[in-house]
């Protein structure tokens, strides 16, 4: 099967087992450039496994994943990690910031790893921190900021390389609703203005409401809710 026309990333028939556990059982997925797609479903249904497969972090047992016309599952590890570094951004629920670095150094880190000079990297990092309204925390360390502030720093770091695709797994999972919604507002605004697509894993409907459409994963199978209405 070919990817839906115009899609940035598309997956078909994904299966993944961990020992006796079937985490994915023929899951489908597609996302267009600049689109925000929520991945919902009960705990243990396979959402994170799907995200990890789509991002090339986990290799599925079978099925295909095409990113921008290229098959992810047959790439070498080096090719896949190069793709992750240059095209993808990541935001997770917890513990993604390096505790020894300041916030601005954390945000600048992906650029530094890509070989950008320190000054230039930190200038770009600060601009993103301003967008996420955390530029005043630039010189603090992650241990000195609140969960909500840390999450905004993490969003800035995920976007600093101008990725075309942002993977977010429960980005507001550890925040109260006011902070969670502010993070979602800033995240989707920033992603939209940078024309980055977002794969947003969440079990919270109010967070999913920031997406353009949603799929639901149940028992490792995905259902595209768009087709229902």
């Amino acid at each position: 099967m070919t990817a839906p026309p115009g899609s940035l990333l598309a997956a078909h028939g994904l299966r993944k087992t961990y020992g006796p556990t079937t985490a994915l059982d023929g899951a489908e997925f597609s996302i267009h450039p600049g689109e925000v797609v929520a991945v919902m479903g009960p705990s243990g249904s396979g959402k994170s496994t799907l995200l990890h497969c789509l991002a090339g972090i986990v290799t599925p047992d079978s099925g295909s994943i095409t990113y921008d016309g290229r098959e992810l599952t047959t790439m070498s590890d080096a090719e896949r990690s190069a793709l992750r570094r240059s095209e993808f951004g990541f935001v997770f629920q917890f513990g993604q910031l390096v505790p020894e670095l300041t916030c601005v150094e954390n945000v600048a880190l992906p650029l530094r790893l890509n070989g950008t000079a320190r000054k230039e990297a930190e200038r770009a990092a600060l601009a993103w921190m301003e967008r996420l309204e955390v530029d005043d925390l630039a010189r603090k360390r992650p241990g000195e900021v609140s969960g909500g502030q840390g999450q905004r720093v993490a969003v800035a770091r995920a976007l600093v390389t101008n990725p075309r695709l942002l993977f977010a797994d429960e980005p507001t999972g550890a925040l109260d609703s006011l902070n969670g919604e502010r993070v979602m507002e800033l995240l989707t605004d920033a992603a939209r203005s940078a024309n980055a697509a977002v794969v947003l894993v969440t079990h919270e409907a109010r967070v999913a409401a920031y997406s353009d459409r949603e799929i639901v994963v149940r028992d490792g199978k995905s259902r595209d809710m768009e087709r229902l209405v």
Partner: protein
Amino acid sequence: MSIGHTLLGLLESGPRHGYDLKRAFDEKFGHDRPLHYGQVYSTMSRLLKNGLVVVDGIEAGDGPERKRYAITEAGVTDVERWLATPEKPEPYLQSTLYTKLVLALLTHRDAADILDTQRAEHLRNMRVLTDRKRKGDLADQLICDHALFHLEADLRWLELTAARLDRLREAVTR
């Protein structure tokens, strides 16, 4: 929402003309549905009859909008009582959906589909509200948030019910 109580409440800060009341109502509460003049006059004449307002002056010219209304002491008490009384939680959606589900199970239709369709519709609604909230002022945000939390509660129920569908089928078709 009780239009009568709301108009009464608006009068507590001082007497107003009919047109002024409508304008104040629309501005503060009429986000999706402004009042008709007819509603204002029928409401005001009811309040007048019940002694909750009095006519405090009439402007030159004709038409009922030129009457100026003032709240009475009984009116203030009425507003107070209304504010102090909690609203009935409305279980309407669950009961309709429950009926649909049971019917679907009894007739061997896909009950999970009903839940998923409702779920998609709820989320679509939540997207519209979220968008309005983003673009709106604080009043919009508070109103939308209230609706959003309610829709979210419904959605949780939909999810829980989806997870219990097999048990429900057993119970219903036994």
